[in-house]
């Protein structure tokens, strides 16, 4: 009887202890993640102007989304941007990682050089590109002109395709080094013995890359893809600062539309509904990717 009581008391005490250990994290998750999420969902069910009282209007904020051509266009544009960026970024980061994976003289310099743009704030990088590509005072056009590559100023952000191209160049410059670093950790986790065994079996470079490197790099590639796809779908700074959504609304991302509804049109309910839709899309896409890439 006493033993049973002691056992039960110990179990109870451990349970309480467990709750106490988990409490700080639970509070942080509750306050910073769950509560805002619940509130945003609640806001999306209300007419919630930034400067006035809220009134329940469900499901108006959701039904009007389909009639918002700017958002519909932004979904298509963001998906296009995400697809192009993810493919190019993955290829470039993998190429860079393969270049600098082995310890050779000078490789440290190149690793640092490739990673360095990642140390520049993204907003600052966007403003930097805006200035550098300006035909009137930026250095790029005069350099190209001196080299005889162009005769007249290049409209870097003057046409929809050029604006997208220039933005993707900015993103590649800014993030290739960071993604290279992620892949580098994956590459270095592959045991050297596996490569040695493959070589002794007569495998060539291409076979080693496709049969050894890529399969063993799969978890790291999956992480990079998820980060890249999520980051691209949430793209904001590069378009808000660099292209301002232009020319003629051709580079408006989904988050830009949310920002516009919230802070230009003061319609928090509508912005919250768009946020919920975007969140649902992201959760669905990431679940799918996790399943496929696992």
């Amino acid at each position, binding site marked *: 009887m006493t033993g049973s009581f002691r056992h039960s008391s110990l179990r109870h005490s451990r349970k309480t202890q467990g709750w106490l250990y988990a409490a700080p994290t639970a509070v942080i998750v509750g306050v910073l993640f769950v*509560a805002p999420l619940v*509130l945003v969902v609640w806001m999306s069910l209300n007419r919630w102007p*930034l*400067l006035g009282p809220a009134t329940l209007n469900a499901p108006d904020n959701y039904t009007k989304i389909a009639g918002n051509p700017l958002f519909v266009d932004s979904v298509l544009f963001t998906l296009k941007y995400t697809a192009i960026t993810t493919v190019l970024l993955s290829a470039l980061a993998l190429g860079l990682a393969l270049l600098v994976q082995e310890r050779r003289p000078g490789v440290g310099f190149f690793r640092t050089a490739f990673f360095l743009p990642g140390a520049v704030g993204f907003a600052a990088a966007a403003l930097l590109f805006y200035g550098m590509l300006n035909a009137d005072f930026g250095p790029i056009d005069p350099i190209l002109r001196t080299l005889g590559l162009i005769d007249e100023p290049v409209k870097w952000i*003057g046409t929809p395709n050029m604006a997208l191209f220039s933005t993707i160049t900015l993103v590649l410059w800014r993030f290739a080094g960071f993604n290279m670093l992620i892949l580098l950790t994956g590459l270095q986790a592959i045991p050297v013995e596996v490569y040695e065994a493959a070589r002794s079996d007569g495998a060539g470079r291409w076979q080693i890359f496709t049969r050894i490197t890529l399969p063993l790099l799969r978890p790291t590639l999956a992480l990079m893809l998820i980060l890249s796809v999520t980051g691209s779908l949430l793209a*904001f700074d590069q378009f808000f600062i660099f292209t*301002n959504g232009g020319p003629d609304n051709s580079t408006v991302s989904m988050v830009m539309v949310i*920002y516009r509804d919230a*802070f230009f*049109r003061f319609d928090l309910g509508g912005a919250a509904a768009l946020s919920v839709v975007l969140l649902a899309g992201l959760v669905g896409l990431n679940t799918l990717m996790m399943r496929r890439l696992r």
Partner: protein
Amino acid sequence: MRPRLAGMAIVTLLALTTACGGGGAEQPADGPVTITMWTRAATQAQSERLVKAYNSGHRNQVKLTVIPTDNYQPRVAAAAGAKQLPDLFASDVIFVPNYTSQGLFLDLTDRIAALPYRDKLAPSHMKLGTMDGRQYTLPHTLDLSVWFWNKDLYAKAGLDPEQGPKTLKEFAEHATTIDEKLGEGGKVHGTFFGGNCGGCYVFTFWPSVWAAGGQVMNPEGTTSLNDQAAMTEVFAIWRGLYDKGVTGPTAKEEQGPTWAGFFPQGEIGVMPMPSTTLGVMPADMKIGVAPISGPDGGESTFVGGDSIGVSATTRNADAAWDFLSWTVSDEAQVEVMAKNKDVLARTDLAGNKYSAEDPRVVLINSLVAKGETPYALRFGQTFNDPQGPWLRLAREAVFGDAAKVPQLNAEVTKSLTQ
């Protein structure tokens, strides 16, 4: 509580901005009071000078926070929702009606009525700070659109360097002459404008409409008149300049941040500029200043800048008013603003001991009473929003299919009434 949590929610989930700072805690009545004030970066220099001068001569102190211009509206709006506004906050004058209608400013009617120079305060700013006969704001800083011309380039192009343009057509002729005579090599251009910036269009094009006797909106700010002949004629002149290559090559892409940065480099012949930049032009640059004219004459200006009011949630209204009323006093206007070539908030001080030294400053000050500041509750979302209908209208009119202007004008009107 709900608005505060709502502010937290939008900040956290959208990860865009924060609503921190501000406040206005009640302080002891007998001791010195520190009041908080917000202003936007665009008018930072003037605000800092006023605050510094006030703090050096008063027991009460003003603590100024400068917020990036592009982020100012969201910050004010988020702070208002969370009841975290500072004691005083300045605002781009065109957004004042919206803030006033939402009850963000304290009613200052009786206090303003006690000022001996109440009838001499910048009329456009005072008009936009008045709602239902009650007054809520004072003029804080003034920024007028005027034409600057580069006298050296005028002389090199064979134009009279002492005679600026008197009509918009003459402006186009001067710009074309400079481009033809000096434009070879692509370094010097006749003129420049912000072709992908809604705010730039209203600031620099609309005064030509007013100068010609036209209007851009009805007085209530609910109907756009930007498809009328007075506006389309102005668009057509600028379109002609762009088509002929007289404007700088990046005019079509210019989003606003750098549109005023070309003239000081000495590469632009004549262009509309903010008057506040006169004081920061290179000392050795010979610059002429002219009012903006219509196609065939007249003169006007967009009276921009900031108004300032006491926030409705302040607990330091008396201390806040003490600073506010001081900023429009003779001392502050002449010894702080005029001394630094800033435009004055009072029409009776236009010709003071400092401005008299520079006829260009006298001219700019005299335009305060002639210019206009358009009124519309939905001004920002209609005219400043890069994705809004106005920018599309202006770009079609200047670079694209001008036949679309009437249809886009209907969208501008729709945005004004939504």
